[in-house]
């Protein structure tokens, strides 16, 4: 047997986080799924358009000075009979350019949805940590409240909170406050699932050695909860958050459509659809169609993406 020189040991190069991600199973599954790619792209386009609304909108639909009532009811792409202006997606009854209105409307829809989920997360995670860590009466009370709230569909809870908050606000401020009340309502109706998941994770982590060690050193409960327990419970929270976002967007659209959400002065997609429904029979179909179509695209793609995400991150299905 000939002697071959032993190969010099090489140190494995550290992969950058981006590279690790690109080679991960998760990304592989993403690349292979046409549904995931398409819905992700659609979501990105819509979110980007909403964020850049001031840049890409042709007009500012909320500036009364820029509106010309004679522009009203212009069909898409056709010049108006009176003013000769033409708009890509037409105008509504007040002469607002639908394209810009939709962009700003999406902005509100996304803002409310995201803020509501954030609120729900903050409340839910805090309560979950508290009830899991301290147990006893804290846990019992929080979980009982959660159970009671869960007996009712969250949209009902949101409606109620909106109604009550509206009743408390003086009439002059109602329109302005509507958006914030909406965020509060949807957020408060949604915290329970976060609390439950985080409580479960906290119960598991609480008994582990590193928590006992931290307690021995004398770290305060808050520090332990936030710095140690929380990071370990983030993974399921993320999945729930994505799906919650889809639900929050739909909830906001529904509430606005029903008239207990974003007012016509600050319309979200739901409000626009409500307005458009009134013109369905009189022939100005575009006032309904384009906002509805946008909401459809948004809701469908966020949902499909969330669904795919849940399956991809589910350890049991692997």
């Amino acid at each position, binding site marked *: 047997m000939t002697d071959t020189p032993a190969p010099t040991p090489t140190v494995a190069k550290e992969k950058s986080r981006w590279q690790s991600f690109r080679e991960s199973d998760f990304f592989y599954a993403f690349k292979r799924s046409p549904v995931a790619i398409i819905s992700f792209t659609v979501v990105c386009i819509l979110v980007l358009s909403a964020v850049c609304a001031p840049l890409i909108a042709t007009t500012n639909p909320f500036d009364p000075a820029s509106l010309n009532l004679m522009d009203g009811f212009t069909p898409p792409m056709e010049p108006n009979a009176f003013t000769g202006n033409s708009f890509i997606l037409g105008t509504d009854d007040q002469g607002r350019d639908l394209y810009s209105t939709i962009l700003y409307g999406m902005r509100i829809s996304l803002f409310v949805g995201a803020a509501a989920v954030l609120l729900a997360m903050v409340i839910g995670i805090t309560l979950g940590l508290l009830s899991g860590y301290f147990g006893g009466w804290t846990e019992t009370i929080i979980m009982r409240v959660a159970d009671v709230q869960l007996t*009712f*569909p969250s949209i009902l809870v949101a409606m109620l909170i909106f109604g009550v908050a509206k009743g408390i606000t003086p009439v002059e401020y109602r329109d302005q406050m509507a958006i914030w009340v909406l965020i509060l309502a949807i957020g408060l109706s949604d915290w329970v699932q976060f609390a439950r998941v985080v409580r479960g994770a906290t119960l598991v982590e609480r008994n582990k050695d590193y928590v006992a060690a931290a307690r021995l050193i004398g770290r305060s409960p808050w520090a332990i909860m936030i710095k140690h327990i929380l990071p370990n419970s983030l993974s399921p929270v993320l999945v729930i958050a994505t799906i919650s976002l889809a639900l929050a967007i739909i909830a906001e659209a529904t509430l606005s459509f029903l008239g207990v959400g974003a007012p016509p002065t600050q319309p979200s997609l739901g409000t626009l659809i409500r307005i458009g429904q009134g013109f369905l029979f009189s022939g100005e179909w575009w006032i309904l169609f384009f906002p*509805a179509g946008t909401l459809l695209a948004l809701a469908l793609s966020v*949902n499909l993406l969330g669904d795919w995400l849940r399956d991809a991150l589910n350890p049991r299905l692997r």
Partner: protein
Amino acid sequence: MAAFIIRRIGQSLLVLLIVGLVAFSMFHFVGDPIDNMLGQERTIEDVERLRAQLGLDQPFPVQYYRFLENAVQGNFGVSYRQGRPVSEILLERAPATLELAAVSGVLAILFGIALGVFTAIRRQGVAANIIMATSLIGVSLPTFLIGILLIYLFSVELGWLPSFGRGEVVKLGNWWSTGILTESGLKALILPAITLGLYQMTLIMRLVRSEMLEVLRQDYIRFARARGLKDRAVNFRHALKNTMVPVVTVIGLQLGAIIAFAIITETVFQWPGVGLLFINAIQFVDIPVMAAYLMLISVMFVGINLIVDILYVFIDPRLRADRTGAH
């Protein structure tokens, strides 16, 4: 088992009391009922008199107790908006919602179970895949959007079905009014029933499918096949029966949700039910109606939850208390 039932009833009553408290607090803290009932022209004496008459000068717990007392007897006060007793308004509009809920519920359950079983048994087929893909869309779309799309298709474009209202109704007895007995009533019922039932149907279908697939993987199904039982017996007698246990629970809970979601459907179709009433009440901050709706809905939800929990014990023999143990 009796102990379990009693405990559950106790829990339910507690929940109802809490909800009652919330409803009452709405009354107490939101807006001023005096303001709403007396006009601009009122004197201090009028206000004081009304206040004493309504018992608003009593301490909080006393008022709460009287509120509950009234509620249990069906007295919810007078609507700020319509000036009529709330109970009268509710009774008037209840049949519309109940009829709509019942019809869509039946549709949802029948089609949901049938499609769920079908897609579980024939899971590889083309039909099953198409149905599953469509169901995903059904779950993602907001209910109101479905309603509007249906209106556009069947009312505006095709003109086959009406887009709002209940059509002609026939009164049965001195309370119930039904739309089923008239042609226009039936036509008016179709689109709203589909809109309301679609979400529930998709939910039930997907649940039945996933539960049944899980059941079909169990050892006792394999053993049943190993004994040479026919496919029909295996699928329906064994698998379906075991699937229904968790499904019944969910269906029961869904029935409550239907009444709540009716709010949306009624708004889209201007269906004169209690849901539309509730939405209008929120828009006008008509507290008595809001509180009454809340209380009634709670009773319904809590009641359904309770019944489903108890039913579960009857359906699954393993949960019955008299375990005689091994010998």
